[in-house]
């Protein structure tokens, strides 16, 4: 497959899940097992195609767009159907297809009440197209469509298959995210008119940047900031996240943490920074401060949690804080760190949510106190996996979590684009507090492990028949477990792919 001409492959990969969702919808509901298998096949084929795309991606030119498609779409507003993929898109795109595939496999055995695999899987496939599209759309309008497309399926996933407070959580998720994204849309439009080039192309606009007055840059960036920051989510826009995660079904949580949150940071990197460099520089200290508050704050909130899943949800706030700290650094290393953190968090936290889901299926509770410890005795393999992933999540070197966190702090010590001259002290403080955040992170994870993993199992569970990790779970989890290790040992897998693209990007920023 020639990456210069095979734009069709990307289009096919992108819309295959959508078509698959339609096909699933056509199947009669009674064919429960067939539907689940069909979903595995669809996501599997899509994943295989993406694997082929990845394999044929020209890594020596990862800074350039490959597999491009550029077709007329809405001529009245100059919006074009512009797809492409560079080193920044590729890892996220790949992750999207991998996670969805794994989720489909997982769903063959696990589906929360009220069942209905057809609807569930169709929504998941719809979600997949939305998520994947966000990472390869190179037209602002198209990007926005994909961006918004994910809201509806996720709303239903939480609302129909969620926990007891699903009504509240789903609506909150939807409205909160929507609120931000409309401001983002307005910012997009403002950019379109200010640039005055009758184009929504991200590439073209990045090349034109900077344009517009300082006031324009500030306000437009603020609009985008609201949209992206809510999605990330940055403190203090994070409160939808714990609720959504806590109530969402396992697969929903996995995709939410694994991919959806990444859309926010991706948006910052792909759109906000290169198109509005001046605004970005003005906002960078604020982003950095909010990010570090998020790190410390998220960790503190984690310490206070009694529900495993909610704890993991709050941990996302902290981890995404590191990602945003990388962005706030406004230099290549920072962007690299942010994007790496994205991927690592997607894999690790996705995996943690899988584990939390399985935990719930075994114990029928997620309350730490009720579980009461002893999992290493009762279900040792599961306990070991939990330890492994928790340790990865707290940023242990050699596992994926480390590189994003360390590099973010490293990058933030000498922020780019002239920020170092003005805010050197601030950024040093940010690094220190972020580093303290890592201790707190270690603290809550160890405490969690101590409370659920160690010791003897309490009375009520001693005679309970609890399954250790099942085959289907091994199949689903193994790729993620291996990726956690692989990315930890070979950070080049992500850093290397992104390198040229990030350099390119910083070129737009003038850094």
């Amino acid at each position, binding site marked *: 497959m020639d990456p210069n001409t095979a734009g069709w492959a990307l289009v096919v990969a992108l819309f295959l899940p959508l078509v698959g969702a339609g096909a699933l919808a056509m199947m009669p509901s009674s064919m429960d097992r067939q539907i689940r298998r069909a979903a595995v096949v669809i996501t599997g084929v899509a994943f295989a195609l993406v694997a082929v795309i990845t394999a044929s991606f020209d890594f020596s030119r990862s800074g350039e767009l490959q597999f491009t498609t550029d077709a007329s779409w809405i001529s009245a507003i100059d919006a074009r159907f512009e797809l492409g993929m560079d080193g920044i898109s590729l890892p996220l795109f790949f992750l999207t297809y991998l996670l969805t595939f794994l989720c489909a496999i997982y769903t063959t055995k696990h589906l929360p009440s009220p069942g209905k695999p057809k609807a569930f899987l169709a929504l998941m496939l719809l979600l997949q197209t939305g998520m994947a599209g966000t990472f390869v759309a190179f037209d602002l309008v198209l990007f926005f*469509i994909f961006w918004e497309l994910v809201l509806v399926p996720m709303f239903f996933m939480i*609302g129909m298959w969620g926990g007891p407070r699903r009504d509240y959580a789903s609506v909150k998720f939807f409205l909160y995210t929507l609120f931000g994204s*409309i401001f983002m849309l307005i910012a997009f439009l403002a950019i379109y008119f200010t640039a005055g080039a009758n184009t929504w192309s991200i590439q073209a606009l990045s090349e034109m940047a900077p344009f517009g007055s300082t006031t324009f840059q500030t306000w437009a960036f603020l609009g985008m900031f609201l949209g992206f920051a809510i999605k990330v989510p940055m403190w203090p826009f994070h409160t939808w996240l714990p609720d959504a995660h806590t109530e969402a079904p396992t697969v929903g949580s996995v995709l939410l943490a694994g991919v959806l949150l990444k859309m926010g940071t991706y948006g910052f990197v792909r759109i906000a920074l290169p198109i509005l460099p001046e605004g970005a520089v003005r906002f960078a200290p604020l982003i950095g401060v909010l990010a570090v508050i998020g790190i410390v704050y998220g960790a503190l909130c984690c310490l206070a949690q009694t529900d495993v899943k909610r704890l993991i949800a709050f941990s996302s706030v902290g981890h995404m804080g590191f990602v945003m700290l990388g962005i706030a650094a406004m230099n290549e290393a920072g962007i690299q760190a942010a994007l790496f953190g994205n991927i690592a968090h997607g894999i690790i936290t996705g995996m943690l949510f899988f584990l939390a889901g399985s935990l719930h299926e075994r114990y029928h509770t997620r309350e730490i106190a009720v579980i009461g410890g002893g999992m290493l005795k009762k279900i040792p393999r599961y306990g070991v996996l939990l330890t492994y992933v928790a340790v990865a999540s707290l940023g242990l070197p050699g596992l994926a979590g480390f590189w994003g966190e360390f590099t973010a702090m490293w990058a933030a010590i000498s922020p780019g684009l002239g920020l170092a001259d003005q805010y050197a002290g601030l950024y040093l403080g940010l690094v220190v507090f972020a580093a303290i955040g890592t201790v707190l992170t270690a603290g809550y994870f160890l405490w969690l492990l101590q409370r659920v993993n160690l010791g003897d199992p309490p009375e009520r569970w001693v005679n309970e028949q609890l399954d250790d990790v099942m085959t289907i779970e091994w199949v689903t989890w193994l790729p993620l477990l291996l990726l956690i290790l692989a990315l930890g040992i070979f950070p080049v897998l992500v850093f290397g792919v992104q390198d040229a693209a990030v350099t390119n990007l910083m070129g737009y920023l003038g850094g």
Partner: protein
Amino acid sequence: MLIDWLAIAPEIALTVTALLVLLADLNLRGQAKQLVAGVAAVGTVVALVFTLILWGDERSTFGGTFVVNEYAVVFKVLFLGSLLAILGISWRFFAEGRYFQGEYYFLLLTSFIGMIIMPSARDLLLLFVALETVSIPAFIMAGMRKRSLYSSEAAMKFFLIGVLSVALMLFGMSIVYGFTGTTYLPDIAASIAALGTVDPLLAAAIMLVIVGFGFKISAVPFHFWAPDTYSGSPLPVAAMLAVASKAAGFAGLLAIAFIAFEPVAELWAPVLGVIAIVTMTLGNLVALQQRDLIRLLAYSSVAQAGYMLIPFGLARSGAAQVNDAAVQAVLFYLIAYAVMNIGAFGVAIAVHRRTGMRSISDYAGLASKSPLMAMAMTTFLLSLGGAPPTVGLWAKFAIVQAALTDVTGFAILLMVFLVINSVIAFFYYLKVVKTMWMDSAPEGLPALQPGFNLSLVVFVLLVGTVLLGVLPGLVSDATSLTGLAVG
């Protein structure tokens, strides 16, 4: 005076159809009366064909007071398309409900004659006549369910508020005439421009004229009739009032505002902008508390009118680019609105027809009984909210686009309210969606049997909502060509 017969061919076709319907109704008996619906549909299609033939033409007749251009054609297609859809969703409703079918179809067609005249009218007199042609049959249709207390109450409220606002409008028109000496819109513009300063009395008169159309589009504070009338009227009539009649109001308001009063846009634009803010905010807030789906849709349509008023708030005299963008935004929004709102009413009719239900809680579990209808309703509601990939998104997009054509502080204020309101609106749309999908169905309810016509209409509108959501260019390519300029 030579009459350009082709220019008025759609109107003539519709008029002939209306008369045929009347005749047929008089001569047919029993079940055969149902044929009139078919006659009406065929006539509508004929009118539609004539309209499409006119696409690309610039024609005017009756001394320039009747103009056919792209703008008018797009509107007429919108109306005739809505008419077809309403015919589709009406058929079983009226066939089963012991109504006066013949009269209904006659009145419906008559009302639509008024509507398709509206976008072509360039004279106060013609606008007034068209408006009344829309309204008077509608008064009667609202009261079609003669034995129903609700229906007669709906008609009465509609009528009284309607005539009051028309009277106010006429009073305003008479004063405008006093100042300008003409009822031809371009001449009014010219002579207002020539006046230089605007007399307070003239300003008041302009406001009064706008009030008349404000009633039609149910802008706050002229909206009070809408919820009561929608919920009391037969549902297809409510759909017609909520969509077509409102669109007609906007057609008239566009002509008045952007042609006749264009030179004093600075005067009315802020007022309409404030009305837009109040309308969408009040509509959305009150909709939050509704338990009756039709009333919810009514308040939602009030709010939607608020969104559509935003472009009016952006108008500026002499700024052709801004004004054109505003007009096109309204037009696009109206089309989108028609597609999704008629669809929503269609599903409501299907549910109501079988179960007699309309409270939101009665929609519980609809998804498990009739998943397709539930999915259609979900799509329409999400589209009304503006979620992708539906046409509703692009409607909002068009408005924001118009607002940002040339940014002013007021435009930003309007945008902020648009954002806040969009979020509030999702509260109640999602409430319905949630009820349909996530609440369990009451026991023993039969599945819906919406019938072929209604299903077809809902399906077409569903496809339209999504298709236009993906390819808004199908419509926006047409609307972007439109301008109010007199051919």
